[in-house]
């Protein structure tokens, strides 16, 4: 019993540290890649290639003045950043990042908590994250913030359904809700190590998932809640210092979470090629996650923001029908093939 508690505590700490560090350097990645895609240099002064930029940013945010405007509703204003930050971290509890392994004589599982409905856990938790945004927007007592909050709630409602439906295909194919089982079912020993990836079995589902996930994480081109050209900074207009930083970390943690889930559901999770079995599986996992993170940035560099009506139209008239169709067709095919 004690060993279990010890190992899971260690795991929790390590995962949190890795996620937070990942978030920090995800910002560096974004700035650097975005810079080059726009034929700029990006951060270059703090450390080699600007690698210490996230540290500098973090220090700056910590030492900035924490401004609380007079017109805010104190309680909800304080709750906002927490509510957006905590669910983003909770997601990682059920993400399998490795096979079970032992280290320093301790047995570790490849996941913090192996829930049999892991995927539902993720959805339940991420769906709570929107409260942070909505409450922040509402409590700030600022029109920009309120509009940001309203937009994020509307966007969330519109895309949540498609989001949920987009993975139904994979679940139906796999017949399980457990993340570890999903990973295990995508393993392959052949040289074509990616042959069992659900990406191939359900490509439409993958595209739907990706689209909805980007919308759920409020990233370009779906970043209407914080559209700086219209709403200053949207729901976090009135936030500064560490409160703002919590939003910021929350957003990047969400991105990471989505990347991890996509990896797990469609790209075989930590599975790597069998002929490179000496490489720890966590490395494969991280590489796949990195590819997704890169795609986020790539997308941001490529596409402009949706207009609000376009966003709604796209969500309800394109994504939702496609998602339903995808779920039904996959279900029928699975039924038909037994």
């Amino acid at each position, binding site marked *: 019993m004690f060993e279990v508690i010890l190992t899971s505590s260690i795991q929790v700490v390590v995962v949190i540290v890795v996620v937070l560090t990942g978030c920090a350097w995800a910002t560096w990645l974004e700035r650097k890649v975005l810079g080059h895609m726009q*034929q700029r240099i990006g951060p270059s002064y703090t450390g080699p290639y600007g690698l210490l930029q996230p540290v500098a940013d973090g220090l700056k945010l910590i030492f900035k003045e924490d401004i609380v405007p007079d017109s805010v509703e104190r309680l909800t204003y304080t709750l906002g950043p927490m509510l957006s930050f905590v669910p983003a971290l909770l997601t990682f509890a059920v993400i399998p990042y490795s096979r079970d392994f032992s280290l320093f004589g301790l047995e570790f599982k490849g996941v913090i908590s192996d829930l049999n409905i892991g995927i539902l856990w993720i959805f339940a938790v991420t769906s709570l994250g929107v409260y942070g945004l909505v409450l922040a927007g509402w409590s700030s007592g600022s029109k920009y913030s309120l509009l940001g909050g309203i937009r994020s709630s509307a966007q969330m409602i519109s895309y949540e359904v498609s989001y949920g439906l987009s993975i139904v295909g994979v679940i139906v194919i796999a017949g399980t809700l457990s993340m570890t089982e999903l990973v295990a079912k995508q393993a392959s020993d052949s040289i074509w190590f990616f042959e069992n990836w659900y990406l191939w079995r359900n490509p439409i589902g993958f595209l739907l998932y990706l689209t909805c996930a980007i919308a759920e994480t409020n990233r370009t081109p779906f970043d209407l809640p914080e559209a700086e050209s219209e709403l200053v900074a949207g729901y976090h207009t009135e936030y500064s210092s560490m409160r703002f930083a919590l939003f910021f970390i929350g957003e990047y943690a969400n991105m990471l979470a989505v990347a991890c889930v996509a990896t797990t559901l469609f790209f075989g999770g930590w599975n790597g090629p069998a002929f490179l079995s000496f490489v720890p599986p966590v490395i494969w996992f991280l590489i796949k996650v990195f590819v997704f993170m890169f795609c986020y940035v790539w997308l941001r560099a490529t596409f402009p923001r949706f207009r609000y009506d376009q966003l709604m139209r796209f969500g309800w008239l394109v994504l939702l029908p496609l998602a339903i169709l995808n779920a039904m067709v996959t279900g029928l095919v699975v039924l038909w093939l037994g």
Partner: protein
Amino acid sequence: MKDLLRALTNVFWRMPPAFWVTMKHMFKKPVTLDYPRKKAAMAPRYRGRHYLERYDDGTERCVCCGLCAAACPADAIYMEPEENEKGERQARVYEINLLRCIFCGFCEEACPEEAIFLGREYEFSDNNRNSFIYSKEQMLVPHPRKPNPFKRIIRRVRRTYGVPEQNS
């Protein structure tokens, strides 16, 4: 249905080229400079910070007439005149707020005494707004002269007041 089709064509037909464009640019040479380490070459007629000019005998050319301030579209120039010991008009206070200045050079154009001109320096940064308000003393410093800037007006003044040509 129309939206659906359009979305699908976009995804499969139009978006890949867009991605390709951004990816292509990622490997091009950046157009920006790694500024503080590398500096751009300025155009020959670049307008930087202001300088005030003196006569050869050391008196200030500026008579504080206010035309530069009147010409300034950004209202960046403030001046207060005074009478010097010779009874001439000169500036007691002459300040240019470089934060307001748009470096258009109108002051240079307006100056009837050719007392002010814009140099080439552009690097002034500070963490204090007040230090951007340049005083007369800051602008009256020695500076790289433009070639024969006052030839025309010196000749004209000499002509009108009949001062004999000097060798200077």
